[in-house]
């Protein structure tokens, strides 16, 4: 029995197909990163797994049970969107409220301590900084000692130290045996945390593989140069150093050499249509 199981799921919003026959399985104890541009269908997928929505077709299971049943969600932890905290409530009150849903919650004081919020327990959430709100959001996902945690863009808008602290908390949770499914549109974040990467775009799973394999695809470089005839050429290559070396050794005339990391979107493009752009070396 998997921690999360999504089988042949389709979800539409009016004419828009947010998820198109998606299947995904996450085993217990896995840390899976879901990567994709905005509007790819990541959040919709999470909302199905957390029982907020019903799929139009297909099956969604959380720990082998229907997440639309409240009791199924006893094992689930979820982050509210950062802007979504009830502004007039105090930090401690929000944590106590969420904790009250579980039989054996993490003591509020301990949780505040762990997320560096100990001095802010009496502060209204509306008065927190962006980083503090993010930390509270992730703390809320862990308060019930869940076995599966869904993190939607957990560190968006955080500075480097805030991000590292949250990453540590997520790693710690995973090291204790927890299952994590996180979304991000930062390659870096998925790279830092996940063992397995699922790339989603336009409601479809484009790739589902180990971090290494996906990185090999995604790690392409874009080399731009103008050839002797004055034509601007673009090459997407896995190893720009080797490419440039070959270029120089071959004695080809070129100018205006430019090397850039391929953007995530270009990488996704690579993943979708495997017919590579003109001149690309594979």
């Amino acid at each position, binding site marked *: 029995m998997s921690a999360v199981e999504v089988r042949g799921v389709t979800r539409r*919003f*009016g004419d*828009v197909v*947010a998820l198109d026959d998606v299947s995904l399985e996450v085993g217990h104890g896995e840390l899976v990163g879901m990567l994709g541009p905005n509007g790819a269908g990541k959040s919709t997928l999470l*909302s199905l797994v*957390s*029982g*907020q*929505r*019903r799929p139009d077709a297909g099956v969604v299971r959380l720990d082998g049970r229907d997440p639309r049943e*409240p*009791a*199924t*969600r*006893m*094992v*689930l932890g*979820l*982050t*509210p*969107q950062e*802007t*979504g*905290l*009830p502004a*007039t*409530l105090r930090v401690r*009150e929000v944590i106590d*409220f*969420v904790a*009250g*849903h*579980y*039989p*054996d919650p993490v003591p509020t004081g301990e949780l505040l301590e762990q997320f560096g919020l100990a001095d802010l327990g009496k502060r*209204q959430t509306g008065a927190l900084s962006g980083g503090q709100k993010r930390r509270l959001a992730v703390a*809320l996902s862990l308060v*019930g*000692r869940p*076995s599966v945690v869904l993190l939607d863009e957990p560190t968006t808008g955080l500075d480097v130290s805030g991000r590292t602290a949250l990453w540590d908390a997520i790693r710690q949770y995973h090291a*204790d*045996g*927890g299952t994590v499914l996180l979304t991000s549109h930062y390659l870096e974040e998925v790279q830092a945390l996940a063992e397995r990467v699922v790339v989603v775009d336009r409601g479809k799973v484009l790739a589902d593989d180990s971090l290494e394999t996906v990185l090999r695809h995604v790690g392409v470089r874009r080399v731009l140069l103008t050839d002797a005839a004055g034509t601007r050429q673009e090459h997407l290559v896995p190893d720009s150093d080797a490419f440039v070396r070959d270029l120089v050794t071959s004695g080809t005339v070129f100018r205006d050499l430019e090397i850039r990391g391929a953007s995530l979107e270009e990488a996704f493009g690579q993943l979708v249509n495997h017919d590579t752009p003109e001149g690309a070396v594979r």
Partner: protein
Amino acid sequence: MSATDRTRTQPFLALSWLHLKYQFLETVRIPIAVLGNMLFPSLTMFFFVVPQTGVANNPLFATTAVAGLSLFAVCSASLFTYGLGVAEDRQLPFYPFLRSLPAGPGPQMVARVLNGGIFSLFGLLPLIIIGWLFTSATVTLGQLLAGIGTILAVSVPFVLLGMTIGYSLSAKAALPVVQIVLFPMAFAGGLFLPPQMFPGWLDAISQATPTRAGRDLLVQATTGAEAYALALPVLAGWTLLFVVLATVAYRNDEGRRFR
């Protein structure tokens, strides 16, 4: 990961109490919501009852008027707080998170009903004081307590109707719908004008409304004037219907609609 039971949610009562505390805190931290609830019925009282000496100086008429306005206050608070309040809540980003917590619609609805009751009581307080100081309305302590108990029980179907509206419509649509529902129902139920002034056909319709049933039960509790025989069954019937509608509306609601 731990040995505790994770196959069922926390007990219903514990969850209801938890959600009640949460909702109460959220409401009370926005003072204007509480004040508005207290001011509106009091102003109505000063404009429509106190100046009419014929009503204000007659203990039975005055008590009945206070009862009618109290019920109007409770209906309006319930429909606005729940119709509009729920519709607004559903548009907040915290709402999907709330719905993903391991609790069904039950505790949240119970908490909403109780929270509605508490803030209705806040609204009644000034009405009772005005009735006592500026009119001849009189009740014994027993009648007062019976009246408060009755009005809380009577508020249940209106809270549920409010929730049905709130879970079915967007905030923009909920506002006019609440107004369209509230005022005809209050009028037909005899909350503004005593139903004794109604022609026979209107009185017949009136007796089928939850407002009239609630009003007559409330008047019975506070003055002893007997309610019509069908008042209780009518009110129970509406309550049952609104329980079903509110539950269906909650289940069909999937957060914000994306188009």
